[in-house]
């Protein structure tokens, strides 16, 4: 049985925490460049220009692109035939986050308890979702998720009779309500189906898919395109000051659900859509 060492996980996690915050992904960078061509508003263009310059500075100087270096969220695919030695997976991830955020001069934004609000001082605990899969590798997907956009996210248990029109109407209402607060241009992550908690997870998971990559199911892919075009007609624009670039992309994940249910979750992401993936073999 393959052995994967605790220390190896710690090191790799620390690295992706830094990388995700310093280096804006090519997918988002290309989306900025495209938006600069298609945005109609002068203020909107100026915003996008600043975001491109900001990404260049962050990468060149290896500093965080945004001061909100986020909640460290992980989706870990653990091969059922591998053996983690030296400690637990979740402990290793948290130690990696502590190391990466400390060494990388990233901001500690996590508090012990939402009611007493005292900072933990090392950005842990991370949010860790574990998927047990076939094989003997571990693949770690990480995102540094900003608080502003997370705060404008929402979940609703719709009625089956609301149908696809009800789903679209609800999603548009959430993007509209978020306006400038979620730091548009956005990446809109949507979960449809599952149950109450699974639906929120699906919305989050959809945000890990790179920009420009459509869902493999053509029906879902078409829904993504349709929502993207409708969201960009809302007029919100870059930073909410008006324009036709409100979403850089829309991602949808769909799963089975109960006959009585139509759960929909909208997880908004700001333009600092920071995600990294590594595979430990």
């Amino acid at each position, binding site marked *: 049985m393959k052995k994967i060492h605790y220390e190896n996980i710690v090191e790799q996690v620390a690295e992706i925490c830094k990388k995700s915050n310093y280096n804006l992904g090519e997918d988002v960078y290309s989306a900025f460049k495209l938006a600069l061509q298609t945005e*109609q*508003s002068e*203020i909107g263009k*100026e*915003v996008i220009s*600043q*975001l491109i*310059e*900001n990404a260049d*500075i*962050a990468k060149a*100087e290896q*500093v*965080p*692109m*945004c*001061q*909100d*270096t986020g909640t460290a969220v992980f989706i870990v695919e653990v091969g059922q035939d591998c053996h983690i030695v030296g400690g637990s997976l979740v402990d290793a991830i948290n130690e990696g986050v502590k190391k990466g955020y400390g060494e990388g*001069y*990233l*901001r*500690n*934004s996590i508090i012990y308890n939402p009611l007493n*609000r005292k*900072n933990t001082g090392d950005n842990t605990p991370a949010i860790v979702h574990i998927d047990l899969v076939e094989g003997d590798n571990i693949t770690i997907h990480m995102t540094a998720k*900003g608080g*502003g956009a997370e*705060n404008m996210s929402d979940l609703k248990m719709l009625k089956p009779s609301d149908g696809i029109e009800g789903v679209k109407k609800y999603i548009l209402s959430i993007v509209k309500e978020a*306006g*400038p*607060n979620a*730091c548009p241009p956005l990446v809109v992550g949507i979960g449809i189906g599952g149950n109450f908690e699974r639906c929120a997870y699906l919305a989050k998971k959809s945000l890990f898919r790179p920009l420009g990559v459509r869902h493999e199911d053509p029906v879902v892919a078409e829904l993504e395109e349709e929502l993207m075009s409708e969201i960009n*007609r*809302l*007029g*919100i*624009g870059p*930073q*909410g*000051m*008006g*324009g*036709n670039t409100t979403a850089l992309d829309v991602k949808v994940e769909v799963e089975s659900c109960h006959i009585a249910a139509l759960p929909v979750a909208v997880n908004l992401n*700001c*333009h*600092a859509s920071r995600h990294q993936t590594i595979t430990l073999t």
Partner: protein
Amino acid sequence: MPKKINLPLQETDLMALKAGDRVLLSGVVYTARDAAHKRMIEQKKEGIPFPIDLTNQVIYYVGPTPAKPGMVIGSAGPTTSGRMDLYTPRLLEAGLKGMIGKGYRSEEVKQAMIKHKAVYFGAVGGAAALIARSIKSSEVIAYEDLGTEAIRKLTIENFPVFVINDAHGGDVYQEGVAQYKS
């Protein structure tokens, strides 16, 4: 072309600003976000004065990242202003003339801005590394125990902002969206 404005804000400069204007700010601003606002207002209720004289001053809603060695400040973009709305009218009464943040303000804050002649600027959320370049000095002057949420005195030079809400009721969020909605 952006307008250049020196701080503290002079009434003539402030009253000439219109929602949607691009502005480069230079001078001194003070940082404060959720925890600092809460403490300022709670202490004021107990009779303890604000730790800074707010007359004609500007507050920047920011919690920067730690500075790397040799740098003045870490990345320092705006945070969502609406979380400060509960406390803002009290600060405007005390002479505050400007705020820098991002996102919607409450109706109460907008009315208080008209009443007390104040302006709300938006910096580009997420442009934190770029914005940090216009910060020339940074010094913690109160509430050091709050860490990233402490009150800092920043000297800024050509700090890029847009006017979101002007002192006459203009609102770029409403006007801009109405213009581009299709």
